[in-house]
């Protein structure tokens, strides 16, 4: 099972985890991204996420395909949020289930690392005294 979504509503972390549970899986690895309260000492008020939806979905599907090609993973959930998120909220959840834990750990790490490099989603950090599009500045 592969479930990939991009939406502007809160992510139900529990539901993501439950949906990858199955009798043939002995391990589930979950990455939960959360909005941190500061970057390089600057206090973050909120993050604003924007995505190019059709391409973001197809890039995430490619990642899921690679995960299944490289490791014996059985179920993959990848949900990403758009819109404004406050400190502590969850912009991304990746849940990976496999028969044994090594595949789940490695594939999940690959998924979040690749997502951050290739999936067309952007975040703007909003501070008390300004804002910055992350990654866009030399």
């Amino acid at each position, binding site marked *: 099972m592969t479930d990939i979504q991009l939406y502007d509503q809160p992510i139900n972390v529990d539901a993501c985890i439950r949906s990858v549970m199955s009798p043939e899986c002995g391990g589930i690895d979950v990455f939960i991204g959360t909005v941190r309260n500061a970057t390089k000492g600057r206090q973050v008020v909120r993050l604003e996420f924007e995505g190019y939806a059709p391409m973001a979905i197809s890039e995430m599907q490619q990642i899921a395909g690679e995960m299944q090609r490289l490791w014996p993973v059985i179920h993959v959930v990848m949900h990403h949020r758009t819109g404004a998120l406050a400190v502590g909220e969850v912009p991304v959840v990746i849940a990976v289930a496999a028969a044994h834990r090594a595949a789940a750990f490695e594939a999940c790490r690959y998924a979040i690392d690749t997502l951050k490099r290739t999936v067309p*989603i952007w975040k703007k950090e909003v501070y008390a005294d300004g804002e910055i599009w992350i990654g866009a500045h030399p």
Partner: protein
Amino acid sequence: MMMKVTVLAFGIARELTGTSQTELDLPEGATAAAVRAALEARYEQLKKLSTYALAVNSMYAQPDTGVKDGDEIAIIPPVSGG
């Protein structure tokens, strides 16, 4: 013969160009490199970006990727999801 493509701009590219969607006329047979040149001629501010990619119909393009009439081009500044 000229052709018309739709251009979408996201994140800082949207703010620099002041638009999220526009159209561009290009000569037939144009490549992604020609799209980049045409965009930078119209929106000089784009050159401020250290780097950006282009996508053609939701796929990352190489400079020699061909562009057809009606294609959807996206300006992809460095991504920062997760």
